[in-house]
């Protein structure tokens, strides 16, 4: 049984202008120990999906249809009480490296200790501090820095501390939403390698959310491409990179340069994504699609199975 199974998940936000369909009919599975990278432009619903998996949708957000099966249990109907038992212990999150993820007036070690003691009130303090030291060793921060305050940490160390906090309660699934924005290239590389290493070492499952394929590719085995609220292509990263099927995936891949060979002009995607309050009836990408057929505009696309674990939401592709 897969660790996480998402079936036909749709999420909407109530806004002044009507219902905004942020996520529509998204389905995928994630095995224990697997890693999935969700990529797409801002506003494509990837962050909303991540929030839903943590039970942290904003008040005007609502799951309208579908199932979130985690270890076989549907989280959709969970109460706040039940979510509290799942969050951090089973599913936890790595936030952006912003300063505000850590409270500036408390020592970093104490903040991690507090995260542990909230979820394991029975644990004696000494054991908690041992656990914090263990986490520091795990994510590669010198243990003597436990008593330092956040401002004494470099950006990279702060991000490591946030990772340590996410790992505090031995979760099975980690959701990382743009965890390396605001970090420099070299630090970003170190953090990505650290996440990858920890994932392999601890057998974690990861959902890594980013707008940047190159970052996601450093960590994940599977790639899910999202566009305008829908998952449009899903498969192992080798398959997606070598044999992209959906025109949007192809276009995304063509936005990245190489370092060697002739300098070829990049071919970015023209246009803007559709409004999600009143999305078009057919394929949502068809206005920007170079290979759209006549029926694409009116006919909703269906999944085309490309390989055993590789599918694309497109009528013109198969």
């Amino acid at each position, binding site marked *: 049984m897969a660790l996480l199974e998402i079936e036909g998940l749709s999420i909407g936000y109530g806004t002044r202008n009507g219902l905004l369909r942020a996520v529509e009919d998204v389905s995928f599975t994630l095995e224990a120990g697997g890693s999935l990278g969700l990529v797409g*432009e*801002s506003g494509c619903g990837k962050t909303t999906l991540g929030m839903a998996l943590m039970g942290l949708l904003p008040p005007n957000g609502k799951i309208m249809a579908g199932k979130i099966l985690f270890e076989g249990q549907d989280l959709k109907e969970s109460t706040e009480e039940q979510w509290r038992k799942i969050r951090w212990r089973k599913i936890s999150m790595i936030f952006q490296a912003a300063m505000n993820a850590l409270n500036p007036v408390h020592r970093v070690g104490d903040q991690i200790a507090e995260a542990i003691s909230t979820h394991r009130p029975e644990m004696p303090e000494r054991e908690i501090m041992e656990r914090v030291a263990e986490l520091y060793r795990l994510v590669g921060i010198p243990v003597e820095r436990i008593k330092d305050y956040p401002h004494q940490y470099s950006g990279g160390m702060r991000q490591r501390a946030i990772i340590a906090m996410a790992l505090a309660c031995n979760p099975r699934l980690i959701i990382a939403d743009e965890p390396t924005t605001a970090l*420099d*290239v*070299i630090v*970003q*590389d*170190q953090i*990505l390698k650290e996440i990858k290493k920890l994932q392999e070492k601890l057998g974690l499952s990861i959902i890594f959310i980013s*707008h*940047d*394929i*190159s*970052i996601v*590719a*450093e960590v994940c085995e599977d790639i899910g491409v999202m566009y305008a609220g829908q998952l449009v292509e899903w498969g192992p*990263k080798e398959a997606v*990179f*070598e044999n992209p099927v959906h025109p949007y995936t192809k*276009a*995304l*891949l063509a*936005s*990245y*340069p*190489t*370092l*060697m*060979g002739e*300098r070829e*002009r*990049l*071919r*970015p*995607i*023209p246009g*803007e994504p559709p409004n999600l309050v009143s999305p078009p009836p057919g394929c949502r990408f068809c206005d920007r699609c170079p290979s759209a057929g006549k029926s694409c505009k009116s006919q909703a696309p269906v999944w085309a199975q490309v390989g055993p674990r590789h599918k694309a939401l497109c009528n013109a592709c198969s």
Partner: protein
Amino acid sequence: MEVTGEHIVEFEGVTKIYKSKASLFSRSSEEVVALRDLTLNIRKGEIFGLVGESGSGKTTAGRLLVKLEEPTEGVIKLDGTDITKLKGGRLKEFRRNVQMIFQDPYQSLNPQVSIFEAVCEPLVIHGIGNSGNRKEMVEEMLALVGLSPPEDFLARYPHQLSGGQRQRVAIARAMILKPTMVVADEPTSMLDASISAQIFNILLDMRERFQVSILFITHSLAAARYLCDRLGVIYKGSLMELGPSGVIIAEPRHPYTQALIDALPKFGQCGSVFHYGTLLAEERRGIEDGEGKGTKEFCPFFPRCRPARAEKCANAMPRLENLSPGHAIRCFFPARPSLQVETAGSSKCYYGI
């Protein structure tokens, strides 16, 4: 567009030091050297890339060039004229020729000003055109940056546009005066990767059409290689390596440049890509906060540099020296050339921008 040998911009020994005032808690005022003895020039019609991490001084260099700040020492010349002493009419003339595209398009457009007014403002300031043909000029420029149909955008306000559209507006605003020099300060770091490519292509088009020279400031060597003719790699205020972008990417000779290439996120067929491994996993401690702090000269990259040798690198600041014509590095122990010719061998390995 042909890049001529003529220089449009010359930085000569430019140093910028920020002083933090003495406060209640720290008696002595602290000095931060943002830029140390920068000497480089930008050729007419060229896109010059300044690559570095945050705090490297790359943004400071750009702000000095557009006169948002003044250098502590040194001279900056535009077309042979020292810009640090410009006043009055000469300064206004300078403002007409040198423009800037800012990092964050969400912040660089006034929320209260419509797109038409924003793009038109430089024309009004410099008294170009009249109320009749300004609208045409604005529409033409909006079309050139890919906002079409342009008349749809005139009456809109920044918050009604996406980040990419806003940055196009910012480019249109910068280009409407047909400047000779534009500073683009990380124009895509706030945008999605897929949008970045659009912005890069617009910059290339602008160079082609208006023969404008561009100082492109970025943290990504991949973006720099895509856009730039020549590159400068800067670390903690000092220029570390300078040369044609193709040469720097294919045969980087400075350990820091090599570390930057190693760190680029990539995907595709990257299996054969060479890894330089010049970055130390843990920084060498003690040199920056040891005895005689601030007085001792040393290579700024020494604490993180694997090939460094303490007896030399920790005791003196290397000078920027030519390895070959047009390719200079600041290192006592330059890496051997062409260690691996097919470095990032595969042309099917793609890099993050």
